[in-house]
């Protein structure tokens, strides 16, 4: 299992000299096996992933956590979607009111975007993420709803006895103190994961000003990872106004605070081999 970070930023792309080390592209992480490619979220980082995966014969499963713009804006620039004869599976959060295609079409249609889903060259198969785990070309995938505004999922991908959990936008503290695991959103996705990508957008002070916005502080991300027993925490969804030095400081805080595991901060180009 090879994990690659293509976009680590939250909310809005924030390219510039002050973000060059961690990167300015929004959420996108790929998980590869010999047999398939899973891509978590379709933020602006998806464009570069598409350059690498164009012409790759492995099936692609695109897993969307939710439909906020920073998680879907890369879709229209993902080259494999324009490859004729290719099938791409697109999974997303279910809704009782509109299907996934209808909701995505709000973005992938004029005037916001010139190309419609039906005009992609590839055969795009859209799926509501099911309640039960499912198998996708050798990956076992489990999706669960998370605390974040609007229908939002987290994912756990497992293969060959290893697992990666991806909870990019998540405010578990809104459900109460991070103490009793039964009452912690997303907990079962992260239990004993080898790698846990978790929202760590805010400092503790920033979080106090933004309770209910759907994101976590570094302190909360560490507490969540420790409770879940995740081996390697990767702070994700960096605040767009945080420069590299600020993210360095937040990472240092996470490393100092972790009780039973390591901590990293996601940066574009980070590769993790499991």
């Amino acid at each position: 299992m090879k994990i690659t970070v293509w976009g680590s930023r939250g909310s809005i792309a924030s390219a510039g000299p002050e973000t060059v080390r961690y990167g300015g592209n929004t959420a996108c992480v790929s998980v590869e096996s010999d047999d398939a490619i899973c891509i978590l979220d379709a933020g602006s980082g998806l464009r570069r992933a598409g350059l690498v995966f164009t012409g790759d014969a492995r099936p692609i499963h695109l897993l969307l956590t939710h439909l906020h713009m920073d998680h879907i804006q890369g879709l229209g620039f993902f080259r494999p979607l324009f490859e004729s004869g290719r099938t791409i599976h697109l999974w997303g959060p279910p809704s009782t009111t509109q299907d996934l295609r209808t909701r995505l079409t709000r973005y992938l249609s004029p005037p916001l975007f010139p190309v419609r889903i039906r005009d992609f060259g590839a055969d795009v198969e859209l799926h509501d993420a099911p309640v039960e785990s499912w198998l996708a070309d050798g990956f076992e995938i489990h999706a669960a709803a998370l605390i974040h505004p609007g229908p939002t999922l987290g994912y756990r991908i497992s293969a060959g006895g290893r697992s990666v959990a991806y909870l990019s936008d998540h405010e578990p503290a809104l459900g109460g103190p991070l103490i009793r695991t039964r009452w912690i959103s997303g907990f079962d996705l992260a239990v004993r994961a080898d790698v846990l990508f978790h929202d760590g957008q805010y400092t503790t002070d920033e979080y106090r000003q933004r309770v209910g916005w759907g994101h976590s502080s570094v302190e909360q991300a560490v507490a969540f990872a420790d409770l879940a027993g995740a081996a390697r925490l990767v702070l994700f969804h960096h605040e767009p106004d945080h420069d590299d030095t600020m993210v360095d400081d937040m990472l240092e805080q996470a490393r100092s605070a972790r009780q039973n595991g390591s901590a990293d901060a996601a940066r574009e180009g980070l590769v993790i081999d499991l």
Partner: protein
Amino acid sequence: MAPSEVELILARQLADGLAVPVLLVDGRGDTVFFNEPAEVLFGRRFDEVDALPFEARTALLAPRYADGSPLTIEQLPGMRAMRERRPAHVAFHMHGLDGVLRPVEATAIPLESARGHVLGAFVVLWAQEAAARVPPGAA
């Protein structure tokens, strides 16, 4: 115990912050939480009883109409709300876990997930003398 669904987690947090008595049940009807104002009606702190299986709660509370006839399982507000997928209002008497019989009214709202599953019910309770005047079967 398995983690709760996110909708139940948020409902519990809401209930915890409200001044009106609230009981939260899961899709099976088991009590998974009641808040501090509800502790007065149930006659026991939640931390003392924690999660009550449906059968145990029903046996202990012995809900009944003002004339003494028991509520069937189907008539309980949370069960009705989940079965009919719409709010249900019922006036009845129940024994608190302290043994005191109290007239109450309850309105239950089904908690349906974005996936279309009924995950439980959010039951708001009132201690009402008026409940005693509601004729049996009117709710």
